[in-house]
């Protein structure tokens, strides 16, 4: 058994695809070696469900497609899905005891789109229960571990996805982001992750957490690799009523993000030695508050300087409602979650308690047993803020703040900057168990990611450095774009990744 799966010998998805098409490597070989490594690295607890036969079957189809000359953009590329995307083949648990062993009769749109593009899935990835958490410690099936150091969290909620990409178990993975759940683990594991504009990627088949915030996005080693996945994932879906048919007059369909990317790249190339000339980077003063650690501040500052070297100009901006986005988010997301999760009652599927008295008793016991503490906490908060008499004071007020946060960004994009940049997290990854006695400490650490979530803007995290000390841990840079500019964001990140190598750093095997 090799230490590293074969796909890690290739620079990225494009190179791997070329090798597959040239017959230098087969999809089955890739899948087999990836499966072997995934199983060998079980100490990461990145995967919740692996089914080699399902994976190899997809790989055989991929090889056949290549042989028949009908390959798709991702044919044979090994990926894996966060376990909040429902899958017909693998169980779907959302990392909850509530859904242990649950088999979905249908695939999520994201899953079927990637499968249709030829991607081969290695299985389902660990995460925080129902995507609630920022350390992957809230999984009913144990925490996932950060490949950079076994003792620290990989971030969350898409912690398994970030860990799997960072450890090289897959070329890319899907994640979901409600308040930072793609960007934060990407930052803490040293990989790239993007949350696209709300409404561009279908939510059909995503186990719902906060419906007005949930958005799926890819996690990969580079901006270019994210583009390969995102361009396939994006698109109108009639089964999701919040899915957009058009984005600023352009049909929401595969090809949209790529064409935006290509357009931006051409412009950068035309600029010669200063490719990002004219690009105005808004740097919110509120993102550099006292909570920001010096390691992160230094790495982000260095990245901003690198962008300036590429020709961009830095503009100080203000997003005055940044602090308020924490309470607003922690009212809206739990409110929606309390309602979204009420379907888990043990009646039709999922965990049902063994012993109970009446109906109400069955429902409460099943839910008390099936949900973990963080999920229960958020359901209680959400139920409270929607109660008659509190609704106006909490939920309605939070919606007003949400609109103000959105306006802050629109004000900045209207006449100050083209892209916003700043840190993703105040600190690098914490040790597993650190915040166990203070459950809301993690909530405060979401301060930099919540704004883009509340506003529905595309936002990305790319690696930009490491912390000092004995165990250097990755640091992420956040890029927030205006609506539907995920192509432009990816092109800007790609430019940075052409002159830096943070994204190519790989953890040693611990």
């Amino acid at each position, binding site marked *: 058994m090799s230490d590293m799966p074969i796909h890690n010998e290739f620079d990225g998805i494009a190179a791997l695809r070329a090798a597959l098409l040239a017959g230098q490597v087969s999809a089955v070989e890739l899948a087999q070696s990836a499966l072997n490594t995934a199983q060998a690295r079980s100490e990461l607890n990145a995967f919740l469900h692996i089914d080699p036969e399902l994976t190899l079957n997809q790989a055989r189809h991929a090889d056949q497609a290549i042989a028949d000359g009908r390959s798709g953009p991702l044919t044979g590329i090994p990926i894996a899905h966060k376990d909040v995307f429902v899958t017909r083949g693998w169980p779907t648990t959302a990392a909850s005891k509530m859904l242990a062993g649950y088999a979905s009769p249908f695939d999520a749109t994201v899953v079927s789109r990637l499968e249709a593009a030829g991607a081969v899935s290695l299985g389902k990835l660990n995460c925080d229960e129902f995507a609630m958490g920022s350390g992957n410690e809230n999984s009913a099936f144990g925490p996932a571990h950060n490949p950079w150091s076994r003792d620290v969290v990989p971030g969350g909620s898409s912690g398994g996805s970030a860990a799997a990409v960072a450890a090289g178990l897959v070329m890319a993975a899907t994640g979901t982001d409600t308040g930072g759940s793609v960007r934060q683990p990407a930052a803490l594991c040293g990989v790239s992750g993007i949350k696209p504009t709300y409404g561009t990627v279908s939510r059909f088949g995503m186990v719902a957490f906060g419906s007005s915030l949930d958005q799926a996005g890819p996690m990969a080693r580079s901006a270019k690799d994210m583009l390969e996945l995102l361009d396939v994932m994006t698109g109108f879906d009639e089964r999701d009523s919040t899915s957009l048919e058009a984005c600023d007059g352009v049909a929401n369909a595969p090809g949209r993000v790529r064409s935006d990317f290509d357009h931006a790249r051409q412009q950068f190339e035309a600029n010669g030695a200063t490719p990002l000339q004219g690009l105005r980077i808004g740097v919110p003063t509120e993102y550099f508050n006292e909570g920001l650690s010096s390691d992160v501040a230094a790495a982000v500052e260095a990245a901003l300087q690198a962008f300036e070297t590429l020709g961009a100009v830095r503009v100080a901006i203000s997003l005055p409602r940044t602090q308020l986005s924490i309470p607003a988010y922690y009212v809206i997301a739990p409110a929606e979650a309390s309602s979204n999760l009420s379907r888990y009652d043990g*009646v039709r599927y999922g965990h049902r308690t063994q012993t109970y008295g009446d109906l109400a008793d069955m429902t409460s016991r099943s839910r008390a047993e099936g949900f973990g503490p963080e999920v229960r906490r958020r359901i209680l908060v959400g139920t409270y803020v929607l109660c008659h008499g509190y609704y106006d004071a909490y*939920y309605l007020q939070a919606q007003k703040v949400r609109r103000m946060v959105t306006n802050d960004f629109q004000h900045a994009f209207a006449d100050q900057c083209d892209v916003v940049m700043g840190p993703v997290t105040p600190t690098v990854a914490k040790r597993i168990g650190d915040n166990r006695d203070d459950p809301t400490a993690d909530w405060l650490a979401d301060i930099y990611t919540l704004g883009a979530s509340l506003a529905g803007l595309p936002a990305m995290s790319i690696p930009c450095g490491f912390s000092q000390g004995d165990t250097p841990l990755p640091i992420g840079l956040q890029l927030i774009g205006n609506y539907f500019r995920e192509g432009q964001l990816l092109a800007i990140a790609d430019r940075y990744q052409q002159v830096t190598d943070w994204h190519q750093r790989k953890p040693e095997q611990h």
Partner: protein
Amino acid sequence: MEWEIVIGLETHTQLSTESKIFSNSSTRYGAPANTQANEVDMALPGSLPVLNRGAVERAIQFGLAVGADIAPRSVFARKNYFYPDLPKNYQISQFEIPVVQGGSITFYVGDEEKTVNLTRAHLEEDAGKSLHENFTGPHGESSTGIDLNRAGTPLLEIVSEPEMRSAAEAVAYARTLHGLVVWLGICDGNMQEGSFRCDANVSVRPKGQAEFGTRCEIKNLNSFRFLERAIQYEVRRQIELIEDGGTVRQETRLYDSDRDETRSMRSKEDADDYRYFPDPDLPPLVIGADWVERVRDQLPELPAAKRARFQSELGLTGYDAAQLTMDRSFAAFFEDAAALLSAGQAKLAANWVLGELSAALNRDEQAIQASPVTPQQLGGLLNRIADGTISNKMAREVFAAMWSGESGGDADAIIEARGLKQISDSGAIGAMIDEVLAANPAIVEEYRAGKQKAFNSLVGQVMKAAKGKANPQHVNEVLKEKLG
């Protein structure tokens, strides 16, 4: 003390769409349990609602028909409560901003016209059904089953203002509303299958008092008779309670038709906090003016317009016009039959459709669409009355024969075959009268002495002699002549 009764109705109307309001599974009634429930209806993880535009279209039709405002932007909200036959444990409904706002319903109580204003009508999904009886679990234990076939069926909940003042008014309102939604084709009106069911809010107050009394809501009344009796019982109960020194408690009550009484289900204090909030899975429902206009163009002539036209153009009474326009097929039958008659004879057609035809349909429990006598056949018969060929009485016999299919239902053929043609020949009638007068000198004497009754007796004798075929008007005229 004199009491005033105050009633408002909330009516759940099942819309006649093929598929459910937020999923594409079928709404057909009576399929085996859970065969018409897909991932959305079962609330499987990852499923999402998608609004059925057909349901919206029907709501617009209704709104236009009652003169309501169609909200250009309305909002779906989640009504959160736990119940096993509510799969998501929230119902998608409309709360703050409903699709239909205002409007009114005009109806007759006896021959008195009454108009009741509507508060609103909103779209929502129905729940599934809990099967409590004769249901056993997988291990043979007594259990409760869940059938989700009905879950997600589109409903239009129509809310009236509390403007009805008697059970009779409430029933007349409900019948008219029922007639209207069936007329529009937006609901099949089948009350046994639950397609049209009412919740009645009932309160009483001393006559002249401005404030309303405390109300009770009686749930799920699925027949007009139950609606009437439940209200009557509830009104009695509340009045007796107050007169005995008690107070009415705000609560939800159920009507038990076997015992003919209402029973408390839950009081306001233990009512759920539904934690309504806008459903983030569904964007606001935007209805453009063009959509409304398109629906308006396709609306059939409405009962009220038809009623007015029947009065002004055909000279019918308000009452007859209202009766005929309770049902669209009924009105169409009448119009088709009346069209065959000469002007001024519409009243004759109205009498027959509301009288003989309705009675026969009721007796045989037939829908008018399946009537054995067609409007054309009825028109043929009525023409024979109008031109004096047969008497009204004879016509009933002919109608009965037509109903049973005699002579292909052709009135003329039946009159011919049965020899029912009226004798209108004055000579023949005169001869018969002469015979009767000769045979009954005593009665003739009585008449001459001033007894009007005697005249009728003589007419009877003549009719008898003519075997009923003599034209009564002619008999009257000739007899009077002869008696001088």
